[in-house]
C-alpha cells in the first residue's frame, strides 16, 4: 500500500488532454507539479465521480499490462483508491510506452471536479514507490530535447494557458528568467527570503521554504500567519469562506515575496477572486505548519498566473519571470 498526498482539487482550474492506451482513450488531467503520479478513473470504479467522468477501459487497450499493485492517493478532501497498470500515454505528440499509471476503483468527493485525473510532474521521490513519473520516462528515453518544462497560466482567457515540455517559449514572459536552486528535490521546493506587506516583514522572518505547485490554486502558508494576513485585509468568514468587500480590493496592500534576492509582488487583484455572483474572497489557505518543522509556503496558481514558471530537472532549479 502506498499512501501519497495530493493537492487540493476544489480550486483547480487548469486542465489539459492526454490519451492512454491503444486505441487511445482521452482524459482531461491536471498537470500538477505538487505530485508525481498519473492516475485516471477506470471501468472498475463504482463511485459516483466515475459515472460523470471519462473512465479507462483496460480491456479494449491492446497495449495495457496489469501490475495490480494497489495505490491509495489521499487528498485534503477526498481519496482515490485503485491499482497500477502500464500502457502507452500520449501527451501532445509525445508517445510514452509502458508508462505506469493508477486506475481508480473508488473515488470520493470528485463528482464535480472539472478533470478526470491528475498527471504529476514532481520528483520521483514523490511518486508511488516502484513507479517512474512520466517526465522521468520522457527524459530517460530522450523523447524531449531538454529536461525542462514550463507553465504559462493565463488569468484572462479560458484558453491560452499552456504547458511546455522539453523547452521554453520565451515569448510568454517579460524580462529575464530568474533561476532559483531547488532546496530539496522532492517537491519543487525553493528557499524564500521573506514576505513583506507595506514594507514590513509579515512572514518568513528568518527565511523559509516555498513549494511551487501548479496543483494548488491558493497561496498556502502557516495558519497563524494566514489568519493574521486575513485579518490585515479585513477578510471575514462567510459560509466557511473568507470574504472581503469588493469595493475595498483596490485599497488592499500588495504582498511581496522575496525569493533568491528578487521581489515578486502580488497585488490584491491577484490574491482576491471575484465569483460569478460578484462576491470577493481571499485566496489564502492555512495548514502548512503540519507539513514540516520549518515554515513552508505553497505558491499555487494565484502566484503562477503572475509569474511564468520553468522547472529545470537538469540543473534542479526553478525559473520565474513576470508573465506576459
Amino acid at each position: 500500500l502506498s499512501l501519497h498526498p495530493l493537492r487540493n482539487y476544489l480550486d483547480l482550474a487548469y486542465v489539459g488532454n492526454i490519451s492512454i492506451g491503444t486505441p487511445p482513450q482521452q482524459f482531461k488531467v491536471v498537470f500538477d507539479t505538487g505530485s508525481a503520479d498519473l492516475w485516471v478513473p477506470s471501468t472498475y470504479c463504482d463511485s459516483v465521480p466515475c459515472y460523470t467522468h471519462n473512465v479507462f477501459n483496460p480491456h479494449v487497450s491492446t497495449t495495457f499490462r496489469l501490475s495490480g499493485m494497489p495505490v491509495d492517493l489521499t487528498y485534503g478532501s477526498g481519496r482515490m483508491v485503485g491499482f497500477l497498470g502500464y500502457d502507452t500515454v500520449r501527451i501532445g505528440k509525445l508517445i510514452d510506452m509502458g508508462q505506469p499509471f493508477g486506475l481508480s476503483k473508488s473515488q470520493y468527493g470528485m463528482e464535480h471536479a472539472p478533470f478526470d485525473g491528475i498527471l504529476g510532474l514532481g520528483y520521483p521521490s514523490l511518486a508511488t514507490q516502484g513507479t517512474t513519473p512520466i517526465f522521468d520516462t520522457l527524459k530517460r528515453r530522450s523523447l524531449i530535447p531538454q529536461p525542462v518544462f514550463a507553465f504559462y497560466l493565463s488569468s484572462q482567457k479560458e484558453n491560452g494557458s499552456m504547458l511546455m515540455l522539453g523547452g521554453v517559449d520565451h515569448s510568454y514572459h517579460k524580462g529575464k528568467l530568474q533561476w532559483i536552486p531547488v532546496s530539496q528535490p522532492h517537491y519543487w521546493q525553493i528557499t524564500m527570503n521573506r514576505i513583506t506587506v507595506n514594507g514590513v516583514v509579515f512572514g518568513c522572518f528568518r527565511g523559509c521554504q516555498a513549494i511551487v505547485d501548479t496543483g494548488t490554486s491558493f497561496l498556502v502558508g502557516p495558519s497563524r500567519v494566514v489568519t493574521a494576513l486575513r485579518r490585515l485585509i479585513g477578510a471575514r468568514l462567510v459560509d466557511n469562506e473568507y470574504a472581503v468587500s469588493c469595493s475595498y480590493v483596490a485599497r488592499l496592500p500588495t504582498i511581496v515575496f522575496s525569493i533568491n534576492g528578487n521581489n515578486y509582488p502580488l497585488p490584491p487583484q491577484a490574491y482576491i477572486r471575484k465569483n460569478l455572483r460578484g462576491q470577493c474572497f481571499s485566496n489564502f489557505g492555512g495548514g502548512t505548519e503540519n507539513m514540516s518543522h520549518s515554515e513552508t509556503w505553497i505558491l499555487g496558481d494565484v502566484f503562477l498566473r503572475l509569474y511564468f514558471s520553468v522547472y529545470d530537472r537538469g540543473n534542479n532549479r526553478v525559473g520565474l519571470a513576470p508573465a506576459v
Partner: protein
Amino acid sequence: CLVIIPLTKMKTMRETLREKNLLTNFLLNNNDDRSQNVAHDPK
C-alpha cells in the same frame, strides 16, 4: 522540438458547488482549510 500542451481554465469545483448550494456542506465535511492536504504527507 518543444511540445506545447494547451491548458483550459475551467470553472472550479468551488464555483460549481457554490452554484448548487453544496459548498458549505462540502467545506464542513472536509476539514482542509479550503486549501490542500499537506498535513498527511507521510514523507
